[in-house]
């Protein structure tokens, strides 16, 4: 087929893209800052939290924001056990962020490796991995969570593990699809022709070219992981009390919607802002890196 392809608008489109990117980046900048602020808060929790997040004051329960009880000032009020909401919120950032980040990293890594393996190896490996992904996707995550907690005991690590175990198929599917298309690119076939071994092909030729799509999925998943952790907390299967996580705080606070709105409102707002910013950043990345993927 003859193909002297005239792409006259192409270079122009590229520059327009660059400008759009800068303009777009400006639009998400506040959210990048919010995310960064949360990360900072999480890292510096012991320094910035005014009080011990677990220290209870049973006679100072459910105090509204700005109350002073027993000589202690509670900027955001106290929760149902008289703990300082602000301090718990600050420490909660640690848990919520690290659960999300760790589970995204774990499931992302596992899913990407498996998806790439399936996409490159095809045949049996492909069938086994992708059917396994189907199986995992059709088992309710709650069931897995309960089983994991029952077998391995509860706790932070298991929450992360449950999330990683249930979410890897998402990445695997994307990595698989992307690998299939990249593996068909002439440069990959050429590398093979030149005698490159599979690890080299995966690492040098495939991974760098699919990582954009994976990162986009990861940003979406990040928000979902935060929500999932909250859901597990609601069902009593999240991180163990008294460790604060925003999800657990929100889940506790919902019982006090009418009597002590602040218990739920503050973690709810934080959760909302966190997910919103990561999603917006992700959407931006998607438009930039990967206009074709879901």
């Amino acid at each position, binding site marked *: 087929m003859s193909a002297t392809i005239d792409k006259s608008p192409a270079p122009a489109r590229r520059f327009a893209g660059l400008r759009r990117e800068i303009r777009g980046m400006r639009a998400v900048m506040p959210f990048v800052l919010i995310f960064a602020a949360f990360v900072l808060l999480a890292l510096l929790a012991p320094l910035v939290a005014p009080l011990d997040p677990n220290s*209870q004051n049973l006679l100072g329960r459910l105090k509204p924001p700005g109350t002073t009880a027993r000589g202690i000032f509670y900027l955001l009020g106290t929760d149902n056990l*008289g703990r300082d909401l602000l301090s718990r919120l600050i420490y909660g950032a640690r848990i919520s962020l690290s659960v999300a980040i760790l589970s995204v990293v774990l499931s992302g890594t596992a899913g990407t490796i498996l998806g790439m393996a399936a996409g490159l190896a095809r045949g049996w490996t492909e069938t086994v991995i992708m059917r396994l992904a189907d199986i995992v996707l059709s088992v309710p995550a709650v069931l897995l969570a309960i089983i994991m907690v029952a077998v391995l005991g509860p706790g932070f690590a298991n929450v992360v593990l449950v999330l990683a175990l249930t979410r890897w198929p998402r990445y695997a599917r994307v990595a698989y699809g992307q690998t299939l298309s990249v593996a068909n690119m002439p440069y990959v076939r050429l590398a093979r022709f030149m005698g490159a071994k599979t690890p080299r092909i995966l690492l040098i030729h495939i991974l760098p070219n699919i990582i954009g799509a994976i990162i986009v999925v990861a940003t979406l998943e990040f928000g979902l992981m935060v929500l999932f952790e909250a859901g597990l907390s609601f069902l009593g299967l999240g991180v*163990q009390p008294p460790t604060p996580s925003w999800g657990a705080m929100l889940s506790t606070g919902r019982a*006090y919607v009418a009597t002590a709105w602040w218990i739920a409102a503050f973690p709810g707002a934080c959760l909302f802002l966190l997910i919103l910013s990561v999603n917006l950043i992700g959407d931006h990345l998607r438009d930039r890196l990967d206009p074709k993927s879901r």
Partner: protein
Amino acid sequence: MTSKRARLTVRSVLSGFLAAALLGSAATAAMAKETFTVDLVNEPSSLDPQKQWNPDSYYVYRNIFDNLVTRNDAGEIVPQVASAWKQVSPTEMQFTIRGDIKFQDGTPLTAKDVAFSIQRIIDPAFASPQLGQFNKITKAEASDDKTVTVTTDGPYPVLLAQLTKLSIVPEHVVEKVGDDAFNLKPVGSGPYSFEAWQRGVSVTLKRNDDYWGDKGPFETVTFRAVPDASTRVADLQAGTADLVVSLDSDQAAQLQTAPNAQALTALTERIAYLGINTGKPPLDDKRLRQAIAYGIDREGIVEGILGGEGKVVGQIVSPAAFGWSDSIEPYPYDPEKAKALIAEVGDGAKAELQFATAPVFDQRIVQALQQMLTEIGLKVEINMTDMATYLKAAQGPRDSQPMLSFGRWSCSCQDADGIMYPLLESDSAWSRYSNPEMDKLLNEARSTLDEDKRRADYEKASELVKDDVSLLPLYQVAIIYGASKKLDWQPTANESLFLNRMSWQGE
């Protein structure tokens, strides 16, 4: 061939689902004015009174059936189906049956039905979950229409208390339709008769206008399953429910400001306690257990968290139960003494203690307990699992039983035997304690009909519990219902929900 068959069956299953879908959505009926709506936590698992053991089923079926004997609002055992009873020998008790009771199908209730009900529940083949409560009974015989004799395998002081839980089922119906069909459409002699069970949604009862005793105030009653407490409160506030169960003190506080709702509370026979694994280091050290006893601020919990709904106790036997002793005082809250005891133990106290719990327990209390123990210098980790996992561990081998746990015990029999024996006798499933002296006291007390001796034994046992801190009693639990302001009803210690003891104000 297999695939063909699989496809066929898949299709038939699917069409079945679809048909059910259409029927299901069409069958929802509007509520009549005379309908009283109760929000339970879960739907009843079964309405055969002898085939299950859970509160949500009990709330419902107890209104369909009459029991052999029952308790009045003051907690005393009073006649119901049996009008009188007497101990004819240490192992035999004879009951006189009322003659004016009719089942809801019009058939009179006779001594034969009573004997049948007892024989049915103690038959191992029937596999009643309640078997353990009645397995001291070896047989029940009706000598005429009005007399039933119950025989036990030894002197059994708790017999009467256990029989408050025995519902009388109609022999002729059960024999005729079988256990399964009876479960789906139960017939009893109680103040309400079974109307409909929309599985997963609600159970509807209808007033039995021929009831021999106090008749119910509502024509129909609907029991719904609403698992989330916040939702139950919302239902109550929105007026879509008239009575909701299982609230905690904070949820009750929410009702104080509501114009149309109120909280109804009663102290129950339940005692909240901190379970301790006394057979495993470091808690095999009595000093450490005493430190725990001194380190927990029970007043703080009751006043601070429970809003005063509850009563601090020093013994595991409830004030509402036989065997309660007025003379046993709780440990005082003394964190300094606790710390001193821990310092005395030294390094052993530094081990991490797993505090097992499940979502059904009040997490506010669990977290408060954990924090208090942390403050006196112990390392306590909360270990929350779902209930089944928790129970498996709690009733498992001594070694895997939790170091610490929080429980609220009730035997529904209001007798120290049902409380102390399962919790403290060496071989009992729940026990994490092993002491020959305790075993002797408990075994003697359960095999004599001499009430004074029993009372003395239990007092001694309670002193032993306190001294040895075999477990740590915390407070007597209050049960909290949310109800419409118009409802007049006094909940009782045995957590029963007798519709015919309620009344509706106004209009």
